[in-house]
């Protein structure tokens, strides 16, 4: 990774060099150079580093566009496992070859997931999807993370020893994601709990045909949400799917206190009956009360504008710490007031229109301003409870999906599913 570090420096040198000659050279060009170097460094790493790249690419409004373009590529560039290795993995983990387990098994994978690949199979007249994990992924997580760490530190301006808690959180979650037995358990649990949500479907999971590295589930037919949103769909349908998605997430957060923290368009399908299908439960974030209570206190408009409560909450969420200087307190109080008011604004209304461009351009402006604000650059970005990482990822992912669906949602409709 030394290579990337040196090259990023080099790109800046190039940028300023070119700028002398040609003041027109845009910052975009620089960002793009940086992004491709980072990407080149990352693409040689399979598995967990790829997952981190995917995570970074989620926050498309907080990262310069060029980063997003390159990091999105990373989601498609994993070489598939050879057919013999797939067979070997079956023999190792299920004790049988695929043709002994299923009636038919397609030896070439249909698509790649970041830490595995999906094959189509049939058994007893049912179409099945079989997810197989790359061998060695679980063991390489720590070393892969050590490689992306310097990049992440630079990109998010994180300083100080305390940053360990964030990396630990990411590492723990990634390790969890490689545990397919846990994934099946979580999938079944959430599937059962969310059954009553209207218009929402899940595949059935088959634990007897699964193991640490293999998951067998129903093959679901439908269009990936990412593709669906590119088609011309009616406002009504967008609202309907958006409402389902919103209810699904709010029910998990408020009802189950654990949430599918990977709202990526690839993890959802839309079927012909215009129902939403959720297909991947690798990453589940438990929301502890120590985070849930202060966080959702702020979701109430009165609290966020009540100076005393707001300040208390910032301390509870570890955004402010006892050692902060008065100028730091002032600066971060204002910054987070602006940011949290914006991010929690959907909760302040009866209905919220995610298709509304204003909400998004305000977020984009904010992101742009933060990334070019010299004062923030100098401040330590290492703030906030570790739970923010996956909660922010969840909300960003969810808001993005709802935006793509141009959905207008009824904010409190999910309450009908909560236990009375």
């Amino acid at each position, binding site marked *: 990774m030394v290579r990337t570090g040196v090259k990023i420096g080099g790109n800046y040198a190039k940028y300023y060099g070119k700028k002398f000659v040609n003041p027109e050279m845009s910052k975009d060009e620089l960002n793009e150079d940086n992004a491709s170097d980072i990407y080149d460094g990352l693409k040689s790493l399979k598995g967990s580093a790829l997952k981190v790249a995917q995570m970074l690419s989620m926050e498309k409004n907080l990262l310069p566009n060029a980063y997003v373009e390159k990091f999105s590529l990373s989601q498609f560039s994993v*070489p598939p*496992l*050879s*057919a*013999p*290795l797939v*067979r*070997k993995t079956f*023999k*190792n983990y299920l004790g049988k*070859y695929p*043709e002994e387990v299923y009636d038919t098994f397609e*030896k070439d994978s249909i698509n790649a997931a970041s830490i595995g690949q999906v094959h189509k199979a049939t058994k007893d007249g049912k179409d099945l999807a079989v997810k197989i994990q790359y*061998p*060695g992924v679980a*063991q390489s997580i720590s070393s892969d993370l050590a490689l992306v760490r310097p990049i992440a530190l630079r990109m998010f301006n994180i300083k100080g020893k305390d940053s360990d808690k964030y990396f630990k959180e990411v590492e723990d979650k990634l390790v969890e994601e490689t545990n397919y037995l846990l994934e099946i358990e979580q999938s079944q649990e959430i599937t059962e709990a969310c059954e009553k949500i209207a218009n929402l479907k899940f595949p059935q999971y088959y634990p007897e045909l699964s193991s640490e590295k293999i998951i067998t589930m129903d093959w679901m037919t439908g269009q990936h949400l990412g593709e669906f949103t590119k088609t011309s769909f009616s406002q009504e349908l967008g609202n309907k799917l958006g409402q389902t998605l919103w209810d699904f997430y709010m029910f998990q957060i408020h009802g189950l206190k654990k949430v599918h923290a990977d709202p990526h368009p690839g993890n959802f399908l839309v079927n012909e009956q215009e129902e939403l299908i959720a297909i991947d439960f690798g990453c589940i974030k438990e929301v502890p009360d120590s985070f849930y209570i202060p966080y959702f206190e702020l979701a109430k408009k009165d609290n966020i504008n009540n100076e005393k409560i707001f300040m208390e909450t910032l301390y509870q969420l570890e955004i402010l710490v006892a050692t902060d200087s008065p100028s730091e307190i002032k600066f971060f109080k204002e910054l987070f007031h602006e940011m949290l008011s914006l991010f929690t604004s959907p909760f302040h209304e009866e209905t919220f229109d995610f298709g509304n461009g204003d909400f998004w351009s305000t977020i984009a402006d904010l992101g742009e301003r933060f990334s070019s604000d010299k004062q923030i650059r100098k401040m330590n970005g290492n703030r906030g409870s570790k739970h923010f990482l996956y909660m922010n990822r969840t909300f960003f992912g969810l808001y993005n999906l709802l935006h793509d669906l141009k959905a207008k949602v009824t904010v409190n409709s999910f309450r009908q599913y909560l236990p009375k």
Partner: protein
Amino acid sequence: MAIKTKKMTVDMVLTKYMEYVLEHEMAPKSVYKFCKVAGIKEEDFYLLYGSLPSLQKGIWEQFYGNAFNVMQENKEFAAFSNKDKMLTFFYTFFEILTLNRSYVLFTLDQSNNPMKNMEQLKGLRKNIKHFAKDLIEDGNAEKNLRITRHNPQIFSEGAWFQFLFILRFWMKDDSARFEKTDMVIEKSVNTIFDVFDNTPLDNIVDFGKFLYKETFA
């Protein structure tokens, strides 16, 4: 013979030999000693092998034979691409070695002298080279141009060196289920096939012929 003894099969003798080596933590010094401990008649031993070193070689050839049979049991094997056949061979072979890991490590570590190891692996080398040669010749049959064909002699030797490389890695591998060895197999075979897959060369030669014909002929 008055007393009818159970006929010794190759398998049984090899199993007894491997047991002997592991139990005594040394190779038997003579056929006599081995046969006595193993309860085999010396004359029966000689029906199968002429000496202990030739038995040692036989073990490796037996490993190969087992791997080959297992591969043939998979009905799809014949339809596999050359690359998948090569991968299947390595995976299967190292699965079999893993089943006999204690013996293999012992016998290869024992004679720390690589030349002596080579002596033991002679028969296996012939088998692997033969297997690779068949694949290369199959591959060549599909190639139209002589220049893009692979020399079976050279390339099968390459397959053997690749095997030795993986074997060394496997001997030192301490990952669970030897998954790192699997990754070495996957990556090394993929790389070698990428390097020697000369479709671009086919195309360049084809294009060159076209240009030559169009401009000079």
